């Protein structure tokens, strides 16, 4: 009994084919069946509760207004994991039709000219602020529509604690330290400054939230920084202040005792209940208090991280995230996707935004207005806008944001690394990023 060579090859081929079949079956799915005028598009957002709830509400309202279009909700993790998923999906053309993502430097890293649909000719573009247009545009086109309101990175504080101790909102760093010392001495165990390194990203606010003060002192700083100007470095003033401040606050023992392991959610709870007095944070996190401690929402106020001089003190503003359309979307789906984006930026879309996520700062489109019953801290932020004391966060002015800042600021804020060393480490970290981006001059 001998097998002929042909027979053997045939057997092998059949074996391979049997193995390959299930694989082929896997990739065979996803055929679209849009007959009869109905179009289905997909919308991708981040998988946390706030984002999915908002997305569900938006889809529901949109489908009601456009019965011939259905929108399928897809979610994925946020953060750096999400960034990489975004890049992978966009570079392989498998991105959902419409997706929600950051604006500014993270948006630029997605290579929008190659991967996204130009939206500059849409009607709603005229309602946007120039600041926002800048953070969703490249040299050639505009790609994103805002979703949510702008917010500040500043010190959120408990007004009751301030009132009990007779404190005033500080406008200089020394006043801030004096307030904190007083809370420590007379506050009956209230933590003067909350830090929550259980979520490492929260440690960056001393540095990132100080950036409006840097711009107030040197308006060209961000440009020089992007161009690798040796003066515009974190080891030099004015930018060094952020690191120095964080070290000083640690050295003076102003943090809550469990700062190394506290999470952001626990910190918000402590702030809301008055177990902690001040928390340098993004004001968008007020959503957590609205959800978990609704009765305390209006006890929370906000003030800018103070600069050394009161004249330089300004509040740092983050632009909202945006909604984009993938370039792989074509034909009927593209029309439907554009309708969806326009809807999000209409007055109906605004109602959804107001109802599902209380704004923590002004909107960047005239299509939206802040509701009467918004949290008290929005008024505090608006006051800075009215007096012209605002500045954009660095990530909206420069494409460079070093990935290790959160670890460096944890080390500085835990007394492991001195501020000078931390700042120098961050300058090195930034250099790597700039080289990877292929920026000139690095």
């Amino acid at each position: 009994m001998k097998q002929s060579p042909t027979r053997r090859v045939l057997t092998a081929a059949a074996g391979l084919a049997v193995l390959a079949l299930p694989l082929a079956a896997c990739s065979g799915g996803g055929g679209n069946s849009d007959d009869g005028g109905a179009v289905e598009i997909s919308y991708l957002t981040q998988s946390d509760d706030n984002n999915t709830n908002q997305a569900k509400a938006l889809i529901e309202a949109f489908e009601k207004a456009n019965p011939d279009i259905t929108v399928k909700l897809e979610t994925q993790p946020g953060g750096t994991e999400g960034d990489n998923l975004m890049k992978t999906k966009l570079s392989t053309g498998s991105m959902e039709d419409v997706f929600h993502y950051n604006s500014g430097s993270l948006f630029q890293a997605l290579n929008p000219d190659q991967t996204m649909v130009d939206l500059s000719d849409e009607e709603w573009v005229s309602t946007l602020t120039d600041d926002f247009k800048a953070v969703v545009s490249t040299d050639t086109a505009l790609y994103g529509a805002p979703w949510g309101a702008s917010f500040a990175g500043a010190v959120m504080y408990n007004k009751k604690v301030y009132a009990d101790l007779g404190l005033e909102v500080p406008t200089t760093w020394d006043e801030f330290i004096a307030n904190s010392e007083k809370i420590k001495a007379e506050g009956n165990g209230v933590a003067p400054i909350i830090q929550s390194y259980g979520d490492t990203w929260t440690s960056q606010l001393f540095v990132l939230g100080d950036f409006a003060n840097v711009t107030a002192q040197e308006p060209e700083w961000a440009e020089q920084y992007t161009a690798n100007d040796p003066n515009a470095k974190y080891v030099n003033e004015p930018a060094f202040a952020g690191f120095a401040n964080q070290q000083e606050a640690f050295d003076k023992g102003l943090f809550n005792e469990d700062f190394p392991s506290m999470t952001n959610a626990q910190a918000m709870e402590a702030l809301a209940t008055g177990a902690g007095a001040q928390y340098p944070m993004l004001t968008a996190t007020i959503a957590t208090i609205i959800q978990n401690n609704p009765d305390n929402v209006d006890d929370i106020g906000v003030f800018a991280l103070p600069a050394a001089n009161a004249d330089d003190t300004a509040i740092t503003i983050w632009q909202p995230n945006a909604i984009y359309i993938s370039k792989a979307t074509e034909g009927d789906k593209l029309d439907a996707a554009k309708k969806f984006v326009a809807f999000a930026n209409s007055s109906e879309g605004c109602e959804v935004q107001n109802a599902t996520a209380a704004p923590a700062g002004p909107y960047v489109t005239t299509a939206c207005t802040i509701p009467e019953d918004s949290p008290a801290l929005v008024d505090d932020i608006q006051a800075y806008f009215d007096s012209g004391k605002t500045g954009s966060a660095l990530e909206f002015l420069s494409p460079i944001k070093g990935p290790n800042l959160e670890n460096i600021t944890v080390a500085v804020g835990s007394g492991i690394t001195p501020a000078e060393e931390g700042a120098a480490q961050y300058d090195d970290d930034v250099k790597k990023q700039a080289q990877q981006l292929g920026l000139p001059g690095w």
Partner: protein
Amino acid sequence: MTTAVAPTGAAPPASRTSKPPMGRKGMKSMYPSWFYIPAAVLFIIFFAVPTFSSFYFSLTRWTLFDVQFIGFDNFIAFFQEPQLVTAFINTFIYGFVTSASKVVLGLALALLLTGPILGRGYLRGVIFFPVLVSTIGVGFTFKALLDPFHGIVNNVLGFMNLPQPGWYTDPNLALLTVAAVDVWKGVGIATLIFMAGIVAIPHEYFEAARMDGAGAWSVFRNITLPLVRPATATVIILSLIGGLRSFDLIWAITKGGPGFTSDVIASVIYKQYQAGFFGLSTAGNVILFIVVIAVMVPVSLFLNRKQDEL
């Protein structure tokens, strides 16, 4: 690859068996050669191609959107990484601490569990159980148990008026805490290997030694220890490789923190990947690959030479 059967081969079987085996050609395979094809295809697609392409990508600036060849710049950048020295030192500390503890504890437990004790089968199960649990699950569980302020361990210590260390928030302790959890999780495998080694020692040796009046320590020192050497070598090699490239447990418990104090090479690489520096992190992987080989080849040669001398 084929076993060289002449296609039209009408040669009588007798003449084949009478031939002396000639190297590979004479090797008789248990299976027909096509039987290997599926495995070979999987190996090539999922192992060989990624391995060799990673050597290429380590020489590029790679954003997933485009690839630009930049020579050895990534390797230079990787070695300029400010945390690299800490990460290297930590990697070696972690590798050697976990490996040594697994050898010592594994051998002790194996002696206990091969001896005549009550509930032996049950205890064997208990020791081996952690090996079966997901590493990430173990990491998160211990992170909760060891929480410096709200964790059960420190609450109990506080109740007994003992100091409550910041297990994974104290920069001096974080790495050792993770190493301890790693040992807890991995010692079952070491114990199992040592048990197999001890059980395989012929009883006559022990009987003869006792006849000569040897005590327990003397039996252990002169019979058990030398004769479980192959098992020891296996445990050292396996746990050292595991320790040097260890990542998941460290990530689950400390994410390399606080700051950079418990970073190892693998976590530095992962952070670079997270940051979108794909070329750079691939270069890091190539370096880790070389480092592990550079450590393991001499160690394994040394251990195996000792075995031959027996």
